[in-house]
């Protein structure tokens, strides 16, 4: 064997070995997309405006507090829109003092004085930070919830500025998980002032039809068996943030319930509130809906129980969301795609059949028309497929149904390069050239056409990859891998086989 052929052989064997290493064992290395293995794909948007809104409310409350403590008079402090609020009726003489105070307390807000009114606007940078933080926190919370719920190999990723992609393999009835992800999960314990009564008016009668200052109305959650309205303290005794541990258990009637213990700080406050209010009702409120309102029998310090006619699943889910914490902002579903496992396995089977038929049809054609040279093309084609799988393994790319289509399409396109070369060789032979030089010219002349043809298709595929979503990306990846590998197999490997099998002084070429 000539020296340069030996080197070529080593290169080819190395590539084969590498690809087998990259894809073996296939069940570990091949990642299947949700369209093939079944599962739920969710795209959701984080309502980042909520975070700005909450920050504005908090800021108003904080300034009111600061102003009161520092004897600054004003008549009104109110929100204009998220990220913008005003304090009206201030004494213009106190402007200097106010400026000092505000500068001392926050740098995130711009403020301007116009007469007796101060307008606060949230700085762009601060707003941006809040939005990003809201998305990150939401993502972490969702991840926690899904981990608690127990899904094997979930994918939870940020997409763009405020989107989150959630992929849940093996979940083909996504309703429960969707609800689990979506609940804001703000848990509050508040003292009940009055209620329950069937409608709001009745509730307010003894207060002259108006909601008094530091209380608010909450509605019972019908699912938990509470129909009426309650009047409760605005300030929560404890919230979900004060929980230390949460677990599912049962109440005294053996119904599913959620047990919790409190942090030291939470326990101190809870002890104080329950100690002072024995005999009163304490409302347990989740996302603004009253779950239950047990009577405080005695001072409670660091543990308690949430009841509410839960099914076992509901109690489990409540544990999950309480453990994972509340969402900093609301979310909205934009896209949902669910594929059951049987459709996925059908797709794999049909894709496999189509692929095998395609490869055998193409092989049969090549051998039929190009005879022994066709065999050469077949070896190149098989190697091409092996390299595609190797590359997919290396890039940890996901196989999707369009990806399978890309591979099958690639089977048809891969032999194009061989056809270009073989036709050119035939032309050269017809001109009377000898076999060796015909092969030589065939390869060199056909190369630019092969390069051209692969390049234009790769160009389209690159933009598909850039702008496409999951399955389409899978298609673009397999197509690109196939076409790049094609340059190696059809040009380098195929040439090597000719050089190896056709003697320099051959009179005939089987083509």
């Amino acid at each position: 064997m000539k020296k340069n052929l030996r080197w070529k052989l080593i290169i080819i064997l190395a590539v084969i070995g590498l690809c087998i290493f990259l894809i073996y064992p296939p069940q570990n290395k091949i990642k299947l997309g949700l369209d093939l293995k079944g599962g739920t794909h969710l795209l959701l948007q984080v309502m980042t405006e909520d975070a700005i809104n909450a920050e504005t409310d908090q800021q108003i409350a904080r300034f009111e507090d600061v102003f009161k403590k520092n004897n600054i008079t004003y008549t009104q402090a109110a929100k204009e829109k998220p990220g913008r609020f005003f304090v009206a009726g201030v004494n213009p003489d106190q402007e200097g003092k106010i400026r000092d105070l505000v500068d001392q307390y926050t740098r995130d807000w711009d403020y301007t004085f116009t007469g007796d009114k101060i307008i606060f606007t949230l700085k762009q940078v601060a707003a941006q930070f809040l939005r990003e933080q809201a998305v990150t926190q939401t993502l972490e919370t969702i991840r926690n919830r899904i981990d608690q719920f127990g899904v094997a190999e979930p994918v939870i990723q940020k997409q763009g500025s405020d989107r989150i992609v959630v992929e849940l393999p093996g979940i083909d009835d996504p309703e429960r998980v969707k609800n689990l992800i979506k609940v804001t999960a703000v848990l509050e314990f508040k003292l009940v002032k009055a209620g329950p009564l069937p409608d709001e008016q009745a509730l307010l009668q003894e207060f002259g039809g108006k909601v008094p200052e530091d209380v608010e109305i909450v509605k019972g959650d019908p699912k938990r068996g509470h129909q009426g309205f309650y009047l409760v303290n605005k300030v929560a005794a404890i919230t979900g943030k004060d929980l230390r541990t949460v677990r599912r258990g049962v109440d005294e009637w053996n119904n599913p319930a959620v047990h919790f213990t409190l942090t030291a700080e939470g326990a101190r406050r809870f002890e104080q509130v329950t100690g002072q209010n024995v005999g009163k009702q304490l409302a347990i409120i989740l996302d603004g809906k009253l779950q239950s309102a047990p009577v405080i029998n005695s001072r409670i310090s660091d543990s308690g129980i949430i009841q509410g006619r839960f099914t076992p699943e509901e109690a489990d889910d409540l544990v999950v969301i309480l453990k994972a914490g509340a969402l900093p902002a609301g979310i909205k579903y934009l896209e949902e795609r669910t594929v059951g496992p049987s459709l996925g396995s059908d797709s794999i089977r049909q894709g496999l059949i189509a692929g095998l038929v395609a490869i055998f049809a193409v092989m049969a054609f090549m051998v039929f028309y190009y005879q022994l040279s066709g065999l050469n093309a077949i070896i190149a084609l098989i190697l091409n497929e092996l390299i595609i799988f190797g590359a997919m393994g290396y890039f940890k790319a996901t196989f999707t149904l369009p990806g399978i289509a890309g591979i099958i399409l690639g089977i048809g396109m891969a032999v194009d390069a061989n056809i270009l070369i073989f036709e050119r060789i035939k032309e050269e032979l017809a001109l009377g050239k000898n076999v060796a030089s015909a092969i030589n010219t065939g390869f060199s002349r056909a190369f630019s056409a092969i390069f051209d043809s692969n390049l234009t298709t790769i160009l389209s595929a690159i933009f598909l990859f850039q702008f496409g979503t999951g399955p389409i990306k899978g298609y673009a990846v397999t197509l690109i891998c196939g076409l790049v590998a094609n340059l190696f197999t059809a040009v380098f490997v195929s040439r090597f086989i000719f050089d190896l099998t056709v003697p320099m002084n051959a009179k005939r070429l089987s083509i």
Partner: protein
Amino acid sequence: MKIFKKTTQIDFLKYKWIALGVTFAIILAGILNITLGKGLKMGVDFGEGTLIRVQFKDPVSVSAIRKLLSDVGLGKSIIQETGKEGREFQIRTVETRSTKQQEQELESHQILANKVIEALKSKDDQQRAAQGLIDLNNIDHKALTAFLAQAFPDKSEELAGRIIDYRTKHGLIIDLNQLKQDPEVNLPDEVLNFLQKKTFLGQMTVLSKETVGPQAGKELRKKATQAVIWSLVAMLVYIAFRFKGVEYGASAIITLFQDVLIALSIYSFTNREINLPIIAAMLTIVGYSINDTIVVFDRIRELKKTMRREPLEKIMNTSININLTRTIFTAGTTFLAVLSLFLFGGKVINDFAFIMLIGSLEGVYSTIFMSCPVVLFWNSLFKNKKFRK
């Protein structure tokens, strides 16, 4: 072996007027159909309704399904049978529900989808579910494990796995006894008895359900448009770089648009919908089809040097004829591959395979009959003096 004994001498350019006429006829019909007729049907990917694939235990007819859906006011839904002896169907909701809040739009799609699914479940199944029985054909692995844990706490996970694997393989469980008879499942009698008491086998199962809300649909539309525009720009840059003569560049561009228009026109006469894979297929067609044109043009440039005295039309004919085998065969192998995808690849990828089939045939046609005539027309329009000697 050779299909054509010698290089063929077919005068393709003789048919240039016919070819042009055919092209125009197809595109005109397509454009009329798209603008005035049926139009291009956008699919779920672009925010239109929900696509639900269902499988039934027993064969059902399309009209029976339509009847069920009409009863709940969803009779306009597009219903297609997708094989397996009248047991598999694809249903797409078309009615849109007006909602007060924009934000609720995805949910409104889903309310409709859930209505469809409920309507398709038989009355018996609904009653059984109301009695607290579990539908073994619609429960997922996690829930089934939890359910079996009531009676068989030690091996619930493993039993559930066996049952779900069987269901995944066969689509639906038709008879509980199969779970005992199938050697791979081989459920013990006590489990079978438990299932017989506490579960039932639903008439129907949902194979897949896809909903894209209007907002996400709009974004996907934008992304698809961007992908198309940027690939076309890339092709134009490539063509400008690759071709010396403006008439060849212009012809390549026109051929390229013609590829897209013909594929779209033919597609518009089918009942198929435009989804993301269709856009992907179109771009692939564009990238793929332009190559043959390039090869023929390259050959023309080469032959112009050796066949100086011959008219351009003759040079073109010779170029096309020399390349004929490879034009047909390269497209032919791709056609073979796509054909097997079309025939065996299954329903989910069928639209994609279909448009690729059109594309691979159409690429041959445009190379042979369109690219060269366009150069001639361009010359006769803009370069009169130069070519009339």
